[in-house]
């Protein structure tokens, strides 16, 4: 395929207090082998060369594992491909002459810092509320493998733990709900013996923090599961609901 010429509609916002707007840009000669972020790099080089402010966007590892990149591309979190983050989205998913709309994650709990970068500290605060186990790490820690854990539970816990906290679930949810994220974080401990001791407090505190941050409720549309780059299952939300009911009945 020949290289592509594209029109980009990008959300520009000077800072968290400024009123943002969509701005049109043209990029030319984009290779289909580029990642989406490399295409953004091309645009930014162009902007810098012409003395304009480059578009601010989050990125770090560019290997699909750090959870730093975001972007709502053509109406979908991490763009039109499945099971990937934006850094793993390739330009071959688009065609020459396309117009691509690029927006930041939208949620009251994810305020825009600048352009396409949002503040995801609300996720950190939820984690601080209980997304951990209290163990002695002074050097005499017990080997985790000394506890018998079924293969099934270990696999499910590992699946839940693959959540990279990117926030695509919130961005994609019509209610800006963080249930898939919190469900995954609750599940990864709830499934393992190490997580049992603090299970009731964990789910109560994490859900309370989630509500406090202003995330919405779950309508079970399943959109989060489809857009999640790590394929985190809705079953984790159901498990969190069960854990909270159990904790409430205690």
């Amino acid at each position, binding site marked *: 395929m020949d290289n592509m010429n594209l029109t980009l509609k990008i959300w520009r916002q000077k800072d968290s207090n400024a009123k943002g707007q969509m701005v049109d840009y043209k990029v030319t000669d984009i290779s289909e082998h580029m990642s989406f972020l490399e295409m953004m790099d091309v645009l930014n080089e162009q902007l810098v060369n012409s003395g304009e402010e480059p578009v601010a966007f989050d990125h770090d590892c560019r290997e699909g594992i750090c959870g730093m990149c975001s972007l709502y591309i053509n109406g979908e979190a991490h763009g039109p491909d499945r099971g990937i983050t934006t850094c793993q989205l390739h330009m071959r998913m688009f065609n020459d002459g396309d117009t691509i709309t690029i927006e930041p994650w939208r949620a009251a709990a994810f305020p825009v810092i600048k352009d396409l970068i949002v503040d995801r500290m609300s996720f950190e605060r939820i984690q601080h509320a209980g997304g951990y186990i209290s163990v002695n790490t002074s050097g005499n820690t017990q080997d985790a493998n000394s506890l018998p854990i079924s293969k099934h539970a270990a696999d499910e816990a590992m699946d839940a733990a693959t959540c990279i906290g990117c926030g695509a679930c919130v961005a994609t949810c019509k209610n800006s709900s963080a249930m898939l994220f919190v469900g995954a974080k609750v599940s990864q401990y709830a499934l393992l013996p190490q997580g049992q001791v603090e299970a009731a407090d964990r789910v109560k505190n994490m859900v309370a923090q989630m509500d406090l941050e202003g995330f919405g409720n779950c309508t*079970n549309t399943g959109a989060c599961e489809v857009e999640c780059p790590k394929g985190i299952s809705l079953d984790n939300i159901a498990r969190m609901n069960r854990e909270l009911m159990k904790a409430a009945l205690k």
Partner: protein
Amino acid sequence: MNGFFKSSIGRKVAMALSAFFLMFFLLQHLAINLLSVISPDLFNEVSHFMGTNPLIQFALQPVLIFGVVFHFVMGFILELKNKKANGVAYAKNNGAANSSWVSRNMIWSGIAILAFIILHFIDFWFPEINTKFIKGDWSGTMAGVEGYRYYEELVHKFVNPVRVGAYVVAFVFLALHLMHGFTSAFQSMGGTAGRKKTLQAIGKAYSIFVPVGFIFVALYHFFNH
């Protein structure tokens, strides 16, 4: 249970519990409506029992009204909270890429059902309350009608094509609401079974057959009288 029902998940559990209750109610309502097609006499007997039995009138009826009102009020509260959580709207949002239309529009199918319930109250429930509680007539009879009045009244309701049309449209919205609501209620209650094939099949069958049953009764009387 301290604060459970004030949490986001607790509210969804309350939504699901009221939904289970309402879905059970719909089944018994449909069963009685279908009797009008099978046997007018039996329909009259059962209607008279439901309309005059003190346990049903003074215990179950208030519970039902509470359940209906609760489901709607909580639905609106959750919708408002969700809208508040959204922040700025997307310039482009492709919801169809990852979720069904019915799951994204529960509030609209719900509002259509609410409109129908208001009409149903004006049409049926208020006159019943007037007859029984204001006029004090618990006989279940009407001047000029032999035996009980219920069957005659039902048939009379489904003469007007506008009413029958509104009735059909309302039950189409109910079907849409149930197509997502049935399995969603199980999921809210923590059931991953909501995603298993059997329950999804039961959900689909329920959400089609129950509304179609109500529509059938209305059309049956419309075309046969």
